[in-house]
């Protein structure tokens, strides 16, 4: 099957989605990230591997945090970094996505980190650029956010050592979440035996079971004996009364508080891709508890993004 992420040698040329990655490829990225994590602990947090390369962050949709972590990752690899907030520049003047990218290629950029509100945007760009240009999907619509899926897998491996006896519960807005999709694919590929999704019916896509997950509408049942709890952000714009009645109501029925956390295993970890809404999907005390690994996730995210960029930049067709 044609896989636009791979080059003619079967190596990773773009990172567009978790689907289509082999278990070996994901493990290779996680192992490499482990090496980069050590670099972040040094006084000199920089290696020369991407010296002379240019990484261009092209964000058609705003996201300060993701853009910042990609920027730090690229800079720690010694690349030059250009940040383009296209949401506020040329697009508003009528330029097409491809024209924007081609202009940046003409400026000799090597790697593009792309975020777009339309699903498939990164695939579209990847299929139109020359083979020596690498595209990293930093989130496309509600489709995929592969580096988040990889950093979450890295986080789980850090705390739980291996994947093959875990119960992982994903809680919240599955319907609109590219993070949930990427995580479900990654956990399936890595061999997690039990993936649960916990959400009200209005926030679950149809036929989600086909992705190999167990559906729970009752959070108390869904959290029982879980090893890993992944909370998702409830976007405020969903609180219009159609999807959800109110923030207070959501917190009461689906918010993660200490009582609910105690239903999971004693050593369960709590994850969140950020930015989190305290008092909406997660209780403040839980977010700051010893079981929370939300801030380590941010640190790991930089190492994982360094690994992805270094692996892609080393590929030649």
């Amino acid at each position, binding site marked *: 099957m044609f896989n636009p992420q791979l080059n003619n040698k079967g190596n990773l040329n773009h990172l567009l989605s978790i689907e289509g990655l082999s278990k070996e490829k994901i493990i290779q990225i996680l*192992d490499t990230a482990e090496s980069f994590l050590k670099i972040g602990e040094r006084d000199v947090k920089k290696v020369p591997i991407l010296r002379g390369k240019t990484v261009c962050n092209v964000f058609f949709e705003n996201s300060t945090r993701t853009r910042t972590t990609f920027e730090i990752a690229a800079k720690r690899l010694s690349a030059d970094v250009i940040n383009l907030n296209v949401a506020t520049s040329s697009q508003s003047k009528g330029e097409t996505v491809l024209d924007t990218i081609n202009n940046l290629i003409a400026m000799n950029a090597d790697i593009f980190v792309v975020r777009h509100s339309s699903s498939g945007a990164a695939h579209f760009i990847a299929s139109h650029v020359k083979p020596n240009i690498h595209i990293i999907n930093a989130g496309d619509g509600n489709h995929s956010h592969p580096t988040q899926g990889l950093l979450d897998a890295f986080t789980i491996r850090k705390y739980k050592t291996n994947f093959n006896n875990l119960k992982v519960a994903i809680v919240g807005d599955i319907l609109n979440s590219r993070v949930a999709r990427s995580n479900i694919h990654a956990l399936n590929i890595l061999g997690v035996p039990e993936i649960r999704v916990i959400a009200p019916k209005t926030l679950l896509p149809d036929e989600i079971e086909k992705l190999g997950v167990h559906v729970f509408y009752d959070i108390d049942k869904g959290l029982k004996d879980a090893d890993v709890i992944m909370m998702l952000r409830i976007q405020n714009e969903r609180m219009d009364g159609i999807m959800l009645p109110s923030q207070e109501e959501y917190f009461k029925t689906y918010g993660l508080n200490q009582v609910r956390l105690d239903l999971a295993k004693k050593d369960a970890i709590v994850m969140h891709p950020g930015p989190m809404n305290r008092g909406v999907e997660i209780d403040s005390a839980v977010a700051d508890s010893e079981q929370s690994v939300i801030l380590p996730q941010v640190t790991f995210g930089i190492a994982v993004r360094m690994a992805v960029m270094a692996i892609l930049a080393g590929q030649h067709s």
Partner: protein
Amino acid sequence: MNLPNAENLIESLKNKINEMIDENTVLIGVQRGGELILQKILPSLGSAVATGSIDTSFYRDDFSSRGLKIKNKPSKIDTEINGKHIILIDDVFSSGRTVRAAMNEIFDYGRPDKITLAVLIDRNEQELPISPQICIEKISLSKNQHLELVLDENKKFTFQLKESHV
């Protein structure tokens, strides 16, 4: 061809290192061969000594043509190296490019007073003005022959010669 006895070479290297070490010494093994040698000689060294290991993957000069090595391990230098005497240990010395990469990485951890390079074998293929100060044996091989230190099933070190066909 007859390859040298790896165990004997390691023993000789250990004796030479033993003569040099003092409280200011840090031994750093280059992964993977140098690290194996370091772990082997460490218990029988005369005195306790600080150690580290280094993987040069992120500092290599051939990244743009060969990409990132699939199996890379984190470098581990947790000890202070400012003002120290580092003895850098590797199994086989050929072009000097790995040592150049290792030295560049070391200087991102601090400023040692001195670096000494100790290897089992020098292949006489030097491409840079870098050469080992301690070398047990010199042998000449052709470019397509890869000499590697391996630990066999009896926990004995041997050399393996692999030929690549270009």
